[in-house]
């Protein structure tokens, strides 16, 4: 059974239809990446799972339990098992608290007062490779990479089963990015964590994710193992994304598939295939609405898939 099972998740902000039915599953110990352009709804998906964004329809099963729409009081104990890593590493840390109290805050919130919080702070800092004396520092004294690691420590404090990570490496230098990904990979192996990771850096996805889903306009348009998506993607949008990945090689000859225009309005969604107007391979048939078609674990929403 999956640890996390999301079915038909829909979110509206007033007339804006941000999520139009999201389905995916994450097994224990698995890393699942959500990829897509800005505005495709990636962040809303994980916020809705964590109960931080509304979800008017659908179901979110965590460990077999329905958690969508639970009141805050019922969600609180679940937050031991589902941890969040936010996008802005410094902004997600209160500037008035020391690093030590920030990373032990989860224990206080969960009322685990019997713990030796100083010892826990030390243990967590060590786990994310930060020196113990960082416990007395404040967030403004940290670099971006160090603040990220504090975010990881906070997320791991309660030994969650699932981590929801929103752009965990955005804005980091390549060497520091490598350190953070190694840390996440290592912790995942040691603690058996499952992860949903959002990123628009496809080079990162290749190294951390077991499976990935491509989002467009609040829907999944393709899903499969990372291997399969990178080598045998079939949706034109996925191909566009993959080709828009500058290579660190001046002689790399990229067969770039240009993506035209801007994403359409979420208030008045286009008829037929929603990617049609921007799709370089659109055909007559694409005026009809494509359905989600999943075969051997490879899902696709396209009436004229590539081979």
């Amino acid at each position, binding site marked *: 059974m999956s640890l996390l099972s999301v079915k038909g998740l829909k979110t509206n902000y007033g007339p804006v239809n941000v999520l139009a039915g999201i389905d995916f599953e994450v097994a224990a110990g698995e890393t699942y990446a959500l990829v897509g*352009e*800005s*505005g495709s709804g990636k962040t809303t998906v994980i916020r809705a799972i964590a109960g931080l964004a509304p979800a008017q329809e659908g179901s979110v099963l965590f460990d077999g339990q329905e958690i969508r729409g639970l009141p805050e009081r019922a969600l609180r104990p679940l937050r031991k098992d589902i941890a969040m890593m936010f996008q802005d590493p410094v902004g997600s840390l209160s500037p008035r608290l020391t690093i030590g109290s920030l990373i032990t805050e989860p224990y206080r919130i969960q009322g685990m007062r019997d713990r030796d919080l100083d010892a826990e702070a030390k243990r967590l800092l060590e786990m994310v490779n930060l020196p113990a004396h960082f416990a007395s520092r404040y967030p403004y004294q940290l*670099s*971006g990479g160090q603040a990220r690691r504090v975010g990881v420590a906070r997320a791991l404090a309660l030994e969650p089963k699932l981590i929801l990570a929103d752009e965990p490496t955005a*804005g980091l*230098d*390549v*060497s*520091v*990015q*490598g*350190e953070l*990904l*190694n840390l996440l*990979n290592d912790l995942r192996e040691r603690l058996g964590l499952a992860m949903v990771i959002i990123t*628009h*850096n*496809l*080079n*990162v996805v*290749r*190294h951390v994710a077991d499976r990935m889903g491509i989002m467009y306009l609040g829907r999944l348009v393709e899903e499969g193992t*990372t*291997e399969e998506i990178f080598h045998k993607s079939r949706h034109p949008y996925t191909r*566009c*994304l993959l080709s*828009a*990945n*500058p*290579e*660190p*090689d*001046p*002689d*790399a000859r990229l067969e*770039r598939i*240009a*993506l035209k*225009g*801007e994403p359409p309005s979420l208030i008045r969604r286009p008829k037929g295939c929603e990617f049609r107007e921007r799709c370089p391979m659109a055909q007559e048939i694409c005026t009809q609405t494509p359905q989600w078609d999943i075969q051997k674990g490879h899902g696709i929403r396209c009436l004229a898939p590539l081979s």
Partner: protein
Amino acid sequence: MTETLLEIDNLGVDYETARGDLKALRDISFDVKKGEIVGIVGESGCGKSTLISSILKLTAPNTRFRNGEVRFKGQDLLQNNERQMRSLRGSDISIIFQDPMQTHNPVLSIGAQMVDIQHRSKAAKADKRATAAKMLAAVGIPDPEARLDQFPHEFSGGMRQRIAIAMALMSEPDLLIADEPTTALDATLEVQIIERLHELQREMHCAVLFISHHLGVIAELCDRVVVMYAGAVVESGDVRAIFHDPKHPYTRRLIDCDPGHIKERARVLPTIPGEVPDLANLPTGCIFRDRCEQAGPRCAAVPPLAGIADGHNAACWLNHKGGVS
């Protein structure tokens, strides 16, 4: 031989801080030729931003120019007064900043801002507006005439960055400085922006100084590359020489670290162990020595930025006779 447009010669810049002088830039030398795209690559804290603000002389009050020259068309900008600098900024030298969400004035329409920045031109307002619309069309904003009346919040991030490019290029500058213009954007927009920038650069023949920590973008866009580390230039050369035959261990490590380089899924990604040195308390010798796997006794002395091949320079003893021992 193409004419040199910008020459940075032995530039040294300090920040005066409570802990003493922070040596933000030391002995920076490189040049930008007319119509060329030069990429500056380096990690956070390497001095990229100090370098740009020094060229434009938009520096913080605690900045001290210790030595060197910044020659633009042969004239040392460091000797210019504020009035002379103002007449250069936005006309001969333009800049695109990192964050497109904060570049524009939120309470003025895009059209008003694009007319405003043509304040040096004597043209009639209607003509300025037409120029603005033409420029918006050139960066691929559909229906430019109508969109001039819209406000920044009505545009997406990618569009706002394209508008920033349009504004920067409107004066047909000789030098465009682009400070991480795609960092805040996602991959598809990043590609759109660099392709558009490249196209316009070819049309207008302006030189571009392109700052980025994204190696893929640098490789794709630039003719030449300057690699900076902790306030110093460690290597510079043709883009192919830098990516295919790097001569400084830092450049090599940086390229190795880019996950775009590693095609198969790796359990452990390469990193550069150690920390960037404290610039207020500089270590002696080679600046990269503490993190370098190949360091030897000779690295106790600062290696000069020396020529290896035509136009390819590196500051490392490994390229000298006798190596590091």
